[in-house]
């Protein structure tokens, strides 16, 4: 990187406007940017992303510059350029040509190895506080979040406390989906018959957009939810004051029906065994389209 210096910056500006715009966005901390994380997981993902980008730019930018420079200098009309039609092999260059990418990938391989272990979504976050358990189920086309310890549940709105690790268990009641709140960090799939795990944490109060990041049918664009991070005390009082119908098998049966853009609402008196009943395929799966629709 050092040797690149000014030339690096100049080429960067000319040849990679898109990376530049990405950099601008990072500083602007825009609404749902993954470069503006509000928790340790998102921050970890960002560090790895930026590290990998910088490692590769160190080799990509000089190569691009050399391509343009060679093409320009060796244009047929340039009489000062030396024509060397026999320059077709050079052992030293071959060695260089194979070793530069190999070394870069070696270096990057280390980043990949460390990153994918430290940021494995299934791994609990290092924290003294006990993680809050949340069970998420994707339906056609809405999200259900069950808080088994509080025995409450919420449709299409995720309430979370600030500064406390969150341990999600995620499944799907029908087709594939993916649980994703960009500013919190990593996403994982929601799959029928499987339980995925995800560990996240929010360290700033606020409302962050969440959605399904895996196409799941006609109602897919409406599979979004607000993820509201509250200070611990406010979260506790919200959890204590949740109103709504009791959540039992009958209530669950309603959710299996396809519906779009459900306005958020809550349940209390949750039967805490229902998540596992869905995940183990004892209940469900979702019904699919009622009338066949088009043939």
């Amino acid at each position: 990187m050092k040797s690149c210096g000014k030339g690096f910056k100049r080429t960067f500006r000319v040849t990679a406007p898109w990376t530049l715009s990405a950099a601008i966005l990072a500083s602007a901390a825009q609404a749902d940017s993954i470069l503006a994380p509000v928790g340790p997981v998102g921050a970890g993902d960002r560090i790895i992303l930026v590290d990998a980008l910088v490692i590769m730019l160190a080799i990509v930018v000089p190569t691009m510059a050399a391509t343009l420079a060679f093409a320009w200098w060796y244009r047929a009309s340039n009489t000062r350029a030396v024509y060397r039609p026999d320059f077709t092999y050079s052992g030293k260059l071959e060695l260089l040509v194979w070793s530069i990418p190999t070394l870069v990938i070696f270096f990057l391989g280390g980043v990949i190895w460390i990153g994918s272990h430290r940021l494995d979504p299934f791994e609990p976050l290092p924290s003294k506080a006990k993680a809050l358990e949340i069970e998420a189920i994707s339906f056609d086309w809405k999200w259900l979040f069950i808080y088994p310890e509080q025995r409450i549940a919420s449709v299409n709105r995720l309430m979370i406390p600030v500064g406390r690790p969150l341990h999600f268990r995620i499944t799907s009641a029908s087709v594939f989906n993916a649980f994703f709140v960009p500013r919190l960090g990593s996403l994982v799939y929601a799959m029928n018959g499987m339980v995925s795990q995800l560990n996240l944490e929010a360290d700033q109060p606020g409302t962050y957009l969440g959605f399904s990041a895996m196409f799941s049918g006609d109602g897919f664009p409406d599979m979004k939810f607000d993820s509201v991070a509250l200070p611990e005390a406010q979260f506790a009082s919200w959890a204590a004051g949740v109103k709504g119908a009791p959540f039992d098998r009958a209530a669950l049966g309603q959710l299996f029906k396809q519906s779009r853009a459900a306005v958020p609402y809550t349940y209390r008196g949750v039967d805490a065994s229902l998540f596992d009943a869905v995940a183990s395929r004892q209940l469900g799966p979702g019904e699919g389209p009622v009338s066949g629709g088009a043939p």
Partner: protein
Amino acid sequence: MLGKLGWNAIPFDQPIPLTAGAVVMLILLGILVFVIVKGWLPYLWKEWITSVDHKHIGIMYVLLGLVMLVRGFIDAIMMRSQQALAFHAQGYLPPEHYDQVFSAHGTIMVLFAAMPLVIGIMNFVVPLQLGVRDVAFPTLNSVSFWLTATGALLVNLSLVVGEFARTGWLPYPPLSELRYSPGVGVDYYLWAVQISGVGTLLTGINFVTTILKIRAPGMTYLRMPMFCWTALASCLLILAAFPVLTATLAMLTLDRYLGFHFFTNEAGGNAMMFMNLIWAWGHPEVYILVLPAFGIYSEVISTFSGKPLFGYRSMVAATLFICIVSFCTWLHHFFTMGAGGDVNAVFGITTSIIAVGTGVKMYNWLFTMYGGRIRFDTPMLWSLAFMTTFITGGLTGVLLAVPPADFVLHNSLFLVAHFHHVIVGGVVFALLAAIAYWWPKAFGFRLHEGWGRAAFWFGFVGFYVTFMPLYVVGILGMTRRLQHYDVPEWRSWILISGLGVLILIGAVICQVAQLVVSIVRKNALRDVTGDPWDGRTLEWATPSPPPVFNFAVLPQVKEAEYYWEAKRRAREAARLGKEPDYAPVEMPRNSPTGFVCAFFATVIGFALIWHIWWLMIVGLVGAYATFVVFAWRDVPEYAIPAEEVARIDRANRAARGEALTGEALA
């Protein structure tokens, strides 16, 4: 009697597909009437439809690919305009329709535009570069092409009869299972891809056999042009990967038709296995496309730099390296499935290792230009655009191969931007370069350079304006396949991307104008020597367009770049080598087998989609009967007399001799 087919299959309530279908049918009808009135039908039947000549089949592949490229581009225009409008609104495409559009766009672009174009170029170029008269199995080649055309026909038929899949270009179960997709859309996908997949597999067999078994005398492996090496690697990948696709789709078909449970939610089905299998094909598939593209760049950069390819053996090694490693990376398509740190890390590393192979290639092209005399004709412009574009596309690809980065970029528009970056910047640029480069060989006249440059600049700028904003909006969290959205920060980037599509429309217009202008002015653009670019490989040793037998006498290859060396010697002596002894040439007879087979394959596919079982049996019997008739043919070949061969070759030698004298005088 007609299975599930009824009047309700025609979408009378949806004006867009209905109008589009009607317009396409009117155009087709118009062309047909025009052809009949002009009396061209017998010519088309004899010289093209029943042709087993690899050059004619190659040209038909390219034509099919270009038409499908435009169809897929129209889908792209619809998607970008829908997203431009659907901010806090529903736009003009309801989800049922929008979901079909993006599914069709992906399927058509990869399988019915890029694949036919790549295979078409291989068909036209490989036998000529190897110095032989045809591929190993000429009639099979015709069958391959027509089966691909069948697939394309079925996909387009779904526009007006029934619907296309609403599942994305890879129909992930459980969404693609009967429970969630009860319509015929997924069935159209399955049979179209299966039938064309058989065609592709046969092409793989044909070209692996051709390259391994029939090359000109003396054409050893390490004397083969780079494009032949990449075609070989690509076809080896086809042989290994396409059966996986066939098996995977067959399992999904059994689920949907016979109540099996390979991938369902019930009875122990496992949808994750579909993702594993489909990507075990899907990832090699992108290298099936991009390896021949690398071969095209190698030919173009070497020719227009006036130098042999730098580090030829390294390039061969890098090609085979990519060919093998591409089979060890598929899991990076689902890091977010939760396989754990070890598995994700291993596949992240194998994926980035591919960048070593492409990196080597990039440097070797760079050093091919070093010390060259570079001419900036359209094919070279595309190649330079590729070199500067693909390297950043590769960079974002390696970023996505880093699991923690993928955890926040998976399925986002960043991913969409990445694969368009490498497939458009890698494969499409190469195909446009290839068409400009080999067009004079195919038709005997060059393409108009001015329109070509205009198309290049519109295409190059339009590509950046379209896809770079998608990187940004992906970083802003936007996921793919959204029919509507309401995040204000995304809107402006989506609008810029829409502007890019407008520029790309300009590129398409210029490209079409180039073809029209060139055909109209073909006499002014005529090339009589057969070697307009000062080429280095054997295809430039024949007349343009090459006679049906390609080479009057098979070349006796004595060194690498044999044609270039022979040309150099001729230039030094200021005269051509001595006239060879002409002998009669035996060529395979044309055969309607491919066309008839494909007709019955279309019938079978359509019948299966609509559950018209008697029609399916009719189709199967017809296809089998075609095979039997072909197998019992009495006269497989015909002879071209030595005088005819001599006449054609002497005419070309005269033109080359004149050019040589002209050069010597200058």
